[in-house]
């Protein structure tokens, strides 16, 4: 009797399984919170430093918490980045390719999932090849090709490949759509076919709407990856067109060019403020659409069966 009671208490504290009992619970939350803090440490540091003025930066007493909030760094950042203008251009080479890439890769994934296409294996092999082969390997001829097509140093050099399913990580998106469309029941398609719909109507009326989660996830990832991309854009956009990321990449020289600044030198506070200004758009999207990012990986069946 007494032993029973003891066992029950013990079970309550230690639990039947890992992370079940009181100790396990506490440990679980504690570990996740501490590791989470370390994980976010660069972001926290970046934020606190971005609101420090020069005095706080050099003051050895001020380590973490600024003596007052100093927003001048952000003003400088806005000027150096030419925020409004650059943001618009960044969106143009992010939003448009993301939408086009999502549509084209969904068509490709649909074809592979629903139709008995001859040569399917070869197409799959080639898609995998585009994933494994680093872009850098064929960047140079692409540069020459774009030069001949006359789309070098324009947004088209980013947009055009994405419209033909050769954008950033297109292979991954094709596989996502392939998995998703394969899980859709064929009975709907068949009944629509009997009712006289052709395959294109079936795709637009049934396939596409039912795959909305896959579309949202693919679009969001596509958007974020294009936003963060600098290798292709620095090569193809030339020296006159800048995305926000490229401005950050050359922050020092951009700072020297910028007019109407009160300071003459960059410091880490200004650079942090500029960095925050650049991650802000994707950060907002992430906070609003978080569940689509996080659950998308599961929901779209990327993980395979």
């Amino acid at each position, binding site marked *: 009797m007494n032993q029973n009671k003891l066992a029950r208490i013990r079970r309550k504290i230690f639990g039947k399984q890992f992370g079940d009992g009181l100790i396990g619970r506490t440990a679980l939350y504690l570990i996740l919170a501490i590791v989470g803090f370390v994980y976010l440490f660069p972001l926290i540091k970046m934020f606190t430093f971005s609101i420090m003025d020069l005095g706080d930066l050099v003051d050895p007493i001020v380590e973490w918490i600024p003596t007052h909030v100093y927003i001048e760094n952000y003003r400088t950042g806005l000027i150096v980045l030419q925020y409004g203008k650059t943001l618009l251009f960044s969106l143009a080479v992010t939003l448009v390719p993301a939408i086009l890439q999502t549509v084209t890769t969904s068509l490709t994934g649909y074809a592979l999932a629903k139709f008995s296409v001859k040569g399917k294996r070869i197409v799959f092999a080639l898609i995998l090849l585009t994933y494994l082969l680093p872009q850098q390997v064929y960047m140079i001829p692409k540069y020459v090709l774009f030069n001949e097509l006359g789309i070098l140093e324009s947004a088209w050099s980013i947009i055009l490949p994405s419209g033909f399913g050769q954008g950033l990580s297109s292979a991954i998106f094709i596989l996502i759509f392939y998995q998703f469309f394969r899980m859709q029941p064929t009975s709907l398609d068949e009944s629509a076919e009997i009712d006289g719909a052709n395959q294109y109507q079936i795709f637009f009326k049934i396939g596409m709407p039912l795959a909305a989660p896959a579309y949202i996830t693919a679009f969001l990832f596509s958007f974020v990856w294009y936003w963060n991309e600098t290798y292709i854009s620095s090569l193809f956009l030339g020296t006159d067109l800048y995305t926000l990321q490229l401005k950050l990449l050359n922050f020092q020289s951009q700072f020297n060019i910028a007019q109407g600044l009160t300071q003459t030198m960059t410091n880490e506070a200004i650079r942090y403020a500029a960095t925050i200004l650049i991650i802000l758009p994707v950060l907002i999207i992430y906070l609003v659409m978080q569940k689509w990012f996080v659950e998308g*990986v599961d929901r779209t069946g990327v993980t395979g069966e």
Partner: protein
Amino acid sequence: MMTKKTRKPMGRNKRQNWVGWSFLSLWVIGFAVFTLYPILMSLYYSFSTVVLDGSGIQVTLVGLANYRAAFSTTAGFAFLSSVSDFAIEILFKVPIITVFAIIIAVLLNQKMKLRGIFRGIYFLPVIIASGPVINQLVNQGAATIPIVEEMGILDFINATFTPALARPIANVFQELIIILWFSGVQILLFIAALQKIDRSIYEAAMIDGAGPWESFWKITMPSLRSMIIVSVVFTIINLATFSENAAIAHIKRNMWISDTGFGFSSAIAWLYFIALAVILVIVVGIFRAFGRDKAVRR
């Protein structure tokens, strides 16, 4: 007696084939123009000297000269050492990322409150980790946990290992947080895999007297095996194509050197791909070997 056959409508399979290809057509055109053609040209360039002048580009075949240069000139040596650095980097980073992702995934897979928030935190870096942003964080020293420097870990590393090894190891410590930042997608992959494990297996094991530790090694890990391979391959490719990667910077820088230029740059790009392919084959091979081992024992 045979009447002339009226043309039958296309068979279902044939029709399917054509409709399928029409859906594929955009990709096929794109692949041919923006991928296949550049790949073939890149191979061609790698065996040539490419000169850019006012009238366009002049390409002259020179055989293996560019590849030979990669193993005999200073520019080549600089590239090769960046590749071997990368290989060593992978040796450290991939296990760290994989183990970290598995641990966090297992923790996040527990039934708990705030799970959504924690998941959100661990995935956040995937959203913001671009080359320039990470560059800023590393340059300003925001990528290190302050303790690492305070405890003199770096001095210890420099004193104990040969310089060739000490550099990458010190790098790992200096960029520890950023390395962990590369595990967001992997964490989600592992969570997805964990959720597919039937809970009743754990219950059965518990009744048979298995503790959480045993359950983890005997049930959880074997079920994660295939996902570990996927995650490792993803991690390697992710690291290999990251824009701040030194080897990739070499390829890009060499494009604009006038006397060697596109030809040499293409050649080292292909060498880089070969190195990457070798690494991937070795890694997947190791996992395969382990798998077979298990199967034999069973």
